[in-house]
């Protein structure tokens, strides 16, 4: 290894010895590609012509209008594939091709990363297999069908909590045997070195564009940059180019599920303790023995008891802070954006938006908030429809529990 993959006290490469050569090879290929103009040119062309970059920066016309706060959305939901995941998957697929690999494997939670990997597999003619927790397969059927349409095989994972954590375990087990021919397209800034570094660099484009667009739109940087955090890739992607702008507040929004006191949440940074999982030292939800505990979120992509190690380091240094939004608050924001702006966000993304709406109600006029609108909500329609038909499925989701998130109360105006 050429680098140690540390972010302060976090990160590293905690994997069975058998996987070390695969990670060494990947680190080398990534570092070479970073310096390879032809590689960067091909990636840039794909991001532009295939994925649709740059994505727009949109200032909400209705939400928050009454508060005088300017709420900007970085529209990663408009990216091909429906979420920011495509940015880094295209980069990893090019690396896989560079390494002569013929097969891609990936884990997926909400299915967005699986969809992105499936489209890259189709694009580059690589055999693609996606590990997905059986619980997530059930609640994200549209994405399962999308992956299959694009030729990927979706393998439901029945072990453990049957969600994202277990899908990563299965992908790592597969890779321990298959790495000579297979590239593991890890979907977030978690995992062993070099993944947290590599995925951050491939997602950095979000913040680079947003920072420049913001300077054009407002002539200044935003007061706060807000993004949801499961593993943390969309948040790192939009934070990275603002890290040196000390006046810009960086806020990561975790899934508070049924509430931080309920034990049913995915708020790793707020309620976890340091440990080692999936290759990195990071914050984890775990019991007193060190057994990893199950997380909960209405949003499959935030239903993860770990988090990218760089977020743990950003929290420890105080450069970023992390807050929680409950299932009910996220669902209210999901509806608020649909009604207020005609944009249906992913339930994951709705967590970031819910926090921004709370903040907007407290901020003075002229405050500029930037939200990474990391994904679109098509995949969640079935789940939300079912909840509407039968609210007893989850009584904690009654939006009337938090009237501050009623779009009309936050100043939505409809002509």
């Amino acid at each position, binding site marked *: 290894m050429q680098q140690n993959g540390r972010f302060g006290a976090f990160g590293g490469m905690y994997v069975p*010895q058998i996987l070390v050569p695969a990670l060494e090879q990947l680190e080398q290929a990534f570092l070479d590609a970073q310096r390879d103009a032809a590689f960067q040119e091909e990636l840039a062309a794909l991001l532009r012509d295939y994925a649709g970059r740059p994505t727009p920066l949109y200032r909400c016309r209705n939400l928050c209008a009454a508060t005088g706060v300017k709420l900007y959305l970085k529209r990663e939901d408009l990216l091909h594939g429906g979420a920011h995941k495509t940015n880094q998957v295209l980069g990893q697929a090019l690396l896989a091709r560079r390494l002569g690999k013929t097969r891609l494997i990936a884990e997926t939670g909400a299915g967005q990363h699986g969809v992105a990997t499936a489209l890259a597999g189709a694009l580059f003619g690589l055999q693609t297999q996606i590990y997905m927790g059986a619980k997530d397969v059930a609640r994200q059927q549209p994405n399962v069908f999308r992956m299959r349409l694009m030729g990927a095989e979706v393998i439901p994972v029945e072990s453990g909590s049957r969600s994202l954590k277990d899908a990563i*375990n299965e992908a790592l*087990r597969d890779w321990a045997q298959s790495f000579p021919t297979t590239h593991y397209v890890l979907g977030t800034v978690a995992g062993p070195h070099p993944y947290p570094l590599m995925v951050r660099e491939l997602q950095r484009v979000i913040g680079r564009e947003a920072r420049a667009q913001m300077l054009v739109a407002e002539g200044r940087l935003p007061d706060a940059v807000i993004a949801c955090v499961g593993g943390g890739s969309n948040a790192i992607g939009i934070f990275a180019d603002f890290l040196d702008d000390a006046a810009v507040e960086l806020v990561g929004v975790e899934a508070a599920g049924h509430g931080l006191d309920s034990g049913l949440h995915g708020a790793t940074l707020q309620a976890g303790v340091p440990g*080692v999982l999936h290759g990195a030292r990071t914050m984890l939800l775990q019991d007193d*023995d*060190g057994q990893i505990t199950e997380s909960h979120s209405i949003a499959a992509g935030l239903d993860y008891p770990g988090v990218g190690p760089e977020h743990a380091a950003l929290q420890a240094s105080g450069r970023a802070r992390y807050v929680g939004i409950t299932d009910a608050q996220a669902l209210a924001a999901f509806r608020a954006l649909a009604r207020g702006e005609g944009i249906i966000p992913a339930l994951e993304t709705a967590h970031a938006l819910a926090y921004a709406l709370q903040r907007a109600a407290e901020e003075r006029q002229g405050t500029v908030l930037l939200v990474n609108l990391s994904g679109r909500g098509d995949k969640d329609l079935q789940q939300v429809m079912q909840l509407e038909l039968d609210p007893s499925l989850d009584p904690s989701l009654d939006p009337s529990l938090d009237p501050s998130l009623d779009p009309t109360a936050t100043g939505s105006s409809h002509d």
Partner: protein
Amino acid sequence: MTDRYALLFERLRAEGAGAFVPFTVLGDPDPATSLEIVRTLVTAGADALELGLPFSDPVADGPTIQAADVRALAAGTRLRHAWALLHALREEFPALPIGLLVYANLVERHGAPAFYATAAAAGVDSVLVADVPTLEAPPYAAAALAAGVLPVLIATPSCSDATLREIAQLGRGYTYVVTRSGVTGADTGAPALEGALLDRLRAVGAAPALLGFGIAQPDHVRTALALGAAGAISGSAVVQRIERHLDDPSAMLQALAAFVREMKAATLRPR
């Protein structure tokens, strides 16, 4: 400290035999039965033990040992139960080398010094951390040695000479040699045994090699010893016999005893 592994390997060398080391997960299928299982393994001829602390996310393990972890945790096995089992085994078998296989988070949760001190107090000889490769191993090895526990490292055929030298420098007791890729399991075909890695380990002065991963039949043991290993570790094949007889503990113990006797017999080299 008494190096029970050194004494064992010395005795076996004098006898012209190799070591057979069965693996099980502590607390599988429940703490009480687990103690009976381990007793049976030793009485039937195990030269040493490799015992796993159950963990929620055993990424280095295949389906068989994952299922054992799930059973142990579902039966309510907590670390304190595992330490109690180890205490009991140490009292009963004072000369038997006992190795622990753990995942890094179980060490991290308690802090390495406290974890290794508890292991030492429970009579554990060695600890192997399955998801700590050589390059992350130095702080673990230092904490282990400070507590009087031998740090065991894993060597694979793809390890560079530099890595093998580090394994020789950091590792104590024995070297866990993995001769095929993938995760643990008995049904993935015979282990791809090759002698080159053992020769390279000897050349750098590493602790004696025990071969693991895929050791499921007496022939695998014989091949391992013929290549120059000091012995073989068999995990999934042991756990399969537990799994197969979950509803009949006495049949389970009989099957385990028969397996250990058969595997141990294969370690007796004709001279």
